[in-house]
């Protein structure tokens, strides 16, 4: 994520100012924070590009030796 989103460190510093992670995420999401939206995009892309996530939604390649 850091490689694709150089602003992640600054965003993490902002998160640390909130009393809880849940409160921080909702505040950023509801506030229409552009940096947060970009981070959500990148994290989801990384997550669903990872074969370990595929079983959770029922995707398979139908290829031997490949999830």
């Amino acid at each position, binding site marked *: 994520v850091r490689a694709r989103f150089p602003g992640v460190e600054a965003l993490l510093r902002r998160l640390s100012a909130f009393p809880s992670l849940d409160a921080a*995420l909702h505040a950023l*999401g509801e506030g229409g924070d552009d940096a947060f*939206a970009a981070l*959500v*995009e990148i994290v*989801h*892309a*990384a997550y*669903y*590009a990872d074969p370990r*996530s*595929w079983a*959770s*939604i*029922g*995707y*398979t*390649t*139908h*290829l031997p030796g*490949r999830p």
Partner: protein
Amino acid sequence: VSVDAVVVGAGAGGGAAACVLAEAGCSVLLLERGDLIRARDDPRDHLAPLGGPIPGLDAPASHARPLVAGGRPWSLLGAVGGGTLVWGMQAWRFHPDDFRMASRYGVPAGSSLADWPIGYDELEPWYVRAEHQLGVAGDETPYAPRSAPYPLEPIERGPVGDWLASGAARCGWATFTPPLAVNSTAYGGRRACVRCSECLGFTCPTDAKNGSHNTFVPRAVATGLCTLVTGAQATRIKTDGRGRASGVDYLAGGQRRSAGARVVVLAGGAIETARLLLLSASRHHRAGIGNEHDHVGRHLQGHTYPVALGLLPPGVPNPNRGPGPSVATTAHNHGNPGVVGGGMLANDFVKTPVTFWRMCLPPDVPRWGLANKRAMRELYGRSIDVKAPVQEVPTPENRVTLHARLRDPAGLPLPELAGAVHPETLRTVEFVRGRLLAWLHASGAEPTWVPTEYSRGLSDWFHQAGTCRMSADPRDGVADPSGRVHGHDNLFIADGSVHVTNGGFNPALTITALALRTATDAATALT
């Protein structure tokens, strides 16, 4: 080096052109900026189709990518086979009316809509050759006459295809199996498709997908007359004072090289071919080769894709097996009330999970959190999407130019893309989107939705065409009806840049058919 012919680009058009020339007994130098990629080298990175660099498959880092005005990089594949290495295999013939758009619809204000100088009948025999030499599986072409059957039986339609065909029938639309350049049975010395789900955006793991890389290019090289040089970037077309092309300068292995040729064939695609003609300006051709009437780089077009999604009813299994497109209708390519043209409607390829998350969720689903995860789990395996490549109304302002400041590592100006989709195209897109939703409703999908992202503004990021369009009159285009650059009798173009309009279909088969025809003319001139 001196050869009979230099071919620039080993994609859908260049591979076919090199094959024709080499098999006619001509010595050929085939220059490809990318590498020869094997399936085992494909990283199968699901992030790749999102418009960013494709690791191992995109243009090599040393070959900078073009920029859209505003700075967004444009993804262009660089590999032997070009786009056909990772394409979705849809091998469509254009509709006869695609060749006469201006006659049928008039010329909308601000557009450069025009008829082709050739018609469907002229191209039909070359479509047959392309289908047989490439290997296309299909059943019929109900919108246009054909003189020979497809060489391969169609891929089995499956339950989703049957369900969508029933829905189309309730709308009164005829359906058929989309033609796919894939081995439904063993063909061309290669195996049949195993129906995996990694087709579009991937190399084929079993080599059952047919493209220039495993058909035309190997045939050309097998003659012993064609030398394929990978990692080679053409930098300039050389001409003599009389306008004849005398060869090509290029970079390979970090060295500047030059090849003399009796014929030069450009097949770098609509962006790079236009760029090379512009880069080849000289005191004899101050605005670039073939640009006496300021058409090189203009009329850039692709396809704008409306998409609709819906949830399959219980009892209709979605096996999510490739290749994906299994049913199509051409009921809305032409004759749509009040709009210009249209497009072929078909179901889509198997979506990778990341593509589904990014582009296919209903607009009211939150982008993150528990509700998002739940939607992914509930919708991925039960949803279906249909889409259509709406043919675009070209304009002279949609164009490729040389960037005023930015240079690639070779010191050459980057290509810059500018323009916007014509309003008539957007009207057609809205109409076709309504037909897509009607198809899903009639099939029994509930609910249906349209994704929030379906277009990137300036055309899309593939199917580029039109930047060196053919014309009977040199004042109206860049190439003559045979693909020869006006005023340059040994300089040919064999890629999508010669398309006057781009049809309501995926254009690769038309590129290949035209390349076979153009290269045959070039070979005749040589021999």
